[in-house]
């Protein structure tokens, strides 16, 4: 149970960062933390006590294994997050070129 609570705490850290930080780069990092928390949650769901890695090798007896599917999902989701982060960083660079600041309180030409 305690690991799930720690995982939730990690998610809250990420959410706190996204909601309160004023620096573009820190927002992007917080989004990364949010993503890690959910990936960790998937891995925790797959974990089974006293079980082995899910590879069937020759001569290895079949015992209880951890669930391999969430591990594949996490792999996909990490790749997707890489893309999102790259997109966000590219946008942040362009924003810096236009506004010459990373502070989101200065970047507010859109109103209404």
């Amino acid at each position, binding site marked *: 149970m305690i690991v799930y609570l720690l995982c939730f705490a990690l998610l809250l850290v990420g959410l706190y960062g996204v909601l309160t930080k004023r620096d573009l780069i820190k927002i992007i990092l917080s989004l990364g933390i949010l993503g890690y928390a959910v990936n960790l949650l998937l891995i925790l769901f797959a974990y089974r006590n006293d079980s082995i890695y899910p590879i069937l090798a020759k001569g290895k007896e079949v015992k209880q294994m951890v669930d391999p599917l969430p591990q594949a999902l996490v792999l996909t989701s990490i790749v997707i997050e890489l893309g999102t982060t790259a997109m966000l960083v590219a946008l942040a660079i*362009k924003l810096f070129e236009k506004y010459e600041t990373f502070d989101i309180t200065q970047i507010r030409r859109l109103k209404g």
Partner: protein
Amino acid sequence: MILPYYIIIPLLATFLITMIAGKKDNWAVILSVISVSAVLVLSLYSFITMKEQTVTYEMSAWSIPYGIVLVQDALTSFILVMVSIISFTSLIFSIQYIRHLSMDWKYYALFMLLVTGMNGVIATGDLFNLFVFMEIALFSAFALVAYGSKAEEFEAAFKYAVMGSISSILILAGIAVLYSATSNLNMAKIAEVLPTVDQKIVFWVGGLFIAGFGLKAAAMPFHAWLPDAHSSAPAPISSMLSGVLIKALGIYVMIRIFYNVFNAPEIFTKIFLVLGTISIIIGVFLAIGQWDMKRLLAYHSISQIGYILLGMGIATPLGILGAVFHLFNHAIFKSLLFYNAGSVEMALGTRDLRKMGNLMKVLPTTSQTSLIASLSISGIPPFNGFFSKLIIIIAALQAGLPWYAVFAIVGSLLTLASFMKVQRYGFKGENVVEAVTNKVGWRMNSAMITLAVLCVVTSLMIVPGIKEVTLDPVVKVITDKTEYIQLVLGGMNGN
């Protein structure tokens, strides 16, 4: 075997465009128009021929609990037809509009990727696959919002990207919880297993999904990104985002998950009712004060999404009929209004309603089609918006929810008021505009005229006789709820 081609054709076009299109955009235009018209023809054909059938396709022939399946039923075909019509006209509109910004093939590659993502979300029957396609559509949407390379556009795209990522993370968390409870990712399998597990799971996952997909659909408390993103994008992309993206990624997936998988628990339909009503009223109040034409239209998207949610929340067959009909109608008239805004912006170089005037003379096609679209969105007969709003209001009265009907009527009246403002100050304003800076060509005009004609023609879908073949199968898919399980698992493999 049509099913995988909805994804393959636009995806192939994306790669072909990036490989063979040179610096100029001629090849890109030809390839993307061919592929979008192919998808349009395929989706129309399958919508007409399939009726109440359900077809599944197993990717790489992996059977259902192991592999990814694509599912096509009446609802899928209906949304696919909507997406293809809007993407086809947007593409025709883009040819001149985007050349006026830049002669670049990258726009068309991103556009086809957007279509791929949406078609994938619509056709898939697997939750994680849905998540992946959703991300594909969102990536291209972020990039396309920032396409004009102005400071405001990057700002809007950054805001959109942050909100989009948060919603995707919430959805992934929901999928994770659902997987841990049911050990399945296939939607039909999940629906089959779900009644046997602890029902608290449904509330947890439902909460995560309402937040996640509500952010994508821009229902009221989750709407903050929409006015910026939709008003900063180039006009054809605004019409794609407002017309189909928020519906394919938000509303369609919510219908699929909450009705076909979760069997529409009453608490969630009540949440839809409340979210819908708040969106209708607050969206229209925010819209009425705007002077930027595209921003006004973007706020109206929130308000009209509210009508669809309201219809879904009523949950009687009539309410769902209204919601599905309004979904289609809103795609048509909102896209048309964004084309109008785009052509005015191109011709006059401004979107401010106070700087426009006597457009009837200088831009006759634009102002006439905008009149049709304005009447349609404010619900004046005989245009399509009237019928769908009327059905939703009648359904609310029949279901014994008179206050929701009153809110819907008030929202409709305020919509009328704000579009009278657009017509009065914008198209018939006092400023005398003598000449236009850029001429609006025949391609842009033909895209607008097509949708203006459709504004009238789609209202025929409610006529008895036509209704039975168009809207009724779609409503049947939704109201049958977990019939979906038998239809998908019942083994009609590969058409």
